């Protein structure tokens, strides 16, 4: 057991090293960091000539949306591109033969590769989150300095308890939005979604003959996953009324494709709405179990594969 774990970790570390060396992934990461940073400029474009505290809400929302959006979008691309290349690249370079000729099980090879991608995604998400936190802090400083400047321009406010109270509430409102602990919840949920995407791409790559096939198919499943809830509701409510083909198709989608749309609650968190941790944990549990199922199926298919 321990030696098996050791082999998985070794393959994972090598996968991470290989992935880090890939220029495409590094370029994607740079783009992600640029997008996160430029969200401040975009937020100003959305509210030009407006300096009142009311507008800080909009600006902070923009920074949060673009920051988390960049983590989700570029994380998705990194997960997709790196996972899709895993097996085809090993086959192309013929390194898989060397590895599997050693006492390494196919399941260990696959789990090691998955572990490597998880490490890569953790690293990328951490870097992008750091950039996001810095941008948010920058936005916070800007909003607070503008609030303070408005307060300083009106010295009579200091003797007015109402004005003092309003000023304090403005400051609190900014801090509440920029230092919202729920942002961590949002990033964790985005990460869980990225892991699910990795699981799907890994499953497809176990039987795919090219990276392009894996990329396109995973992307399609990802899109369908966002509509799975609609298909499921139709199937459960009106499946019996529909034709056998319609019912069969939506039934198949409902039974096999993961519900990616549930993870869009991240938008609600970023809009400042309260999402209980119990709900987030429910979603994380769902993602974990789904991932176990995906990895299980991947291992079986990979065991069958002629190499």
């Amino acid at each position, binding site marked *: 057991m321990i030696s098996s774990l050791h082999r998985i970790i070794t393959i994972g570390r090598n996968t991470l090293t290989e992935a880090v060396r890939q220029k495409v992934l590094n370029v994607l990461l740079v783009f992600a960091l640029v997008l996160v940073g430029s969200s401040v400029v975009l937020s100003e474009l959305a509210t030009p000539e407006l300096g009142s505290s009311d507008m800080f809400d909009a600006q902070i*929302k923009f920074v949060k949306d673009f920051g988390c959006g960049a983590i989700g979008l570029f994380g998705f691309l990194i997960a997709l591109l790196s996972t899709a290349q895993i097996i085809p690249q090993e086959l192309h370079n013929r390194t898989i033969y060397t590895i599997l000729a050693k006492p390494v099980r196919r399941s260990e090879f696959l789990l090691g590769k998955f572990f490597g991608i998880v490490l890569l995604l953790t690293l990328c998400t951490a870097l992008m989150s750091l950039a996001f936190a810095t941008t948010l802090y920058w936005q916070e400083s800007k909003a607070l300095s503008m609030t303070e400047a408005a307060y300083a321009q009106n010295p009579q406010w200091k003797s007015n308890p109402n004005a003092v109270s309003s000023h304090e509430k403005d400051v609190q*409102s900014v801090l509440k939005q920029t230092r919202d602990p729920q942002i961590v919840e949002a990033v964790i949920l985005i990460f869980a979604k990225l892991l699910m995407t990795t699981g799907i791409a890994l499953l497809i790559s176990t039987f795919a003959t090219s990276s392009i096939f894996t990329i396109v198919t995973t992307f399609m499943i990802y*899109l369908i996953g966002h509509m799975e809830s609609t298909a499921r509701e139709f199937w459960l409510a009106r499946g019996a009324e529909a034709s056998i083909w319609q019912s069969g198709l939506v039934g198949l989608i409902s039974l096999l494709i993961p519900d990616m749309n549930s993870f869009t609650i991240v938008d609600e968190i970023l809009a400042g709405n309260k999402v209980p941790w119990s*709900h987030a944990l429910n979603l994380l549990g769902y993602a974990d179990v789904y991932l176990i199922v995906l990895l299980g199926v991947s291992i079986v298919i990979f065991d069958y594969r002629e190499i």
Partner: protein
Amino acid sequence: MEIPGLQMSTCLPLSWRLRRAALVALLLGLWAPCKIIWEQRIAKEQDFLRYRGAPITLQLRDQLGQGLTIGVLSGMRSIVADLIWLNVTTAWMNEEWFRMGGYINLCTALQPRAPVFWDMGGWHLAWNASISALHDRTQPNELRRIKASRFWVDKGLEIYKRGLENNPTYWRLWSDTGLLYQQRLKDYRTAAIYYQKASELPNAPVYLERFPAIMYGLAGDDKAAYASWKALWERLTPEQREQKAHWKEKIESNIRRLEPKLSIPKEKRVFPN
């Protein structure tokens, strides 16, 4: 380069593989109904918490265009809404009010639980568009200008009210609706109701507490104004009255003015002397 015997050494024996495949098929068979039940439970929770935006209909797809629809379908709903909001700002600066109204509707449909869109959208329509219409010299007469202005006020009011349905605990929307009723529609009684609700919500500024009483006064409803001032006075503890010293005078003077005017019996007065 083929390595002889590699497949045999790396693959499991057939009986084992079949056994494992049967096990996975069984697991998948068990997982599928569990998945549906689990997802339905998550969906129910999300419905309860009102997390869902507008579903992707053909109309919404036509409004969004192909690229943005893919964005929404990829789970980038908030970014798509933000990008559309950039168009709202552009339309506002170019004074293209109908275009701006369309974009506001799109943003609020995509993210109904983002109060910022309702708040700023209502303000753009009810104030910016309506004031611009009031000064529109291309209209042949004043009546047309007033009519056009009122059209945008109604549009803004509609946005505020739909925003309140989706975000009932956001004090600023209640306050902004009150302001609209007060300043643009001169309906002080309704404004008082909205201000009252705004003042009761968390994080609302303290100055809003006085607004309902002032609105009732402006509406000429002295009885309601007196009740509101009195309630405000009674709600304050002696310490709070001291902290809000400059308020105390305002509240007191209003109560003192209204008590004789409404012929309140001395024993029921806040200030009998």
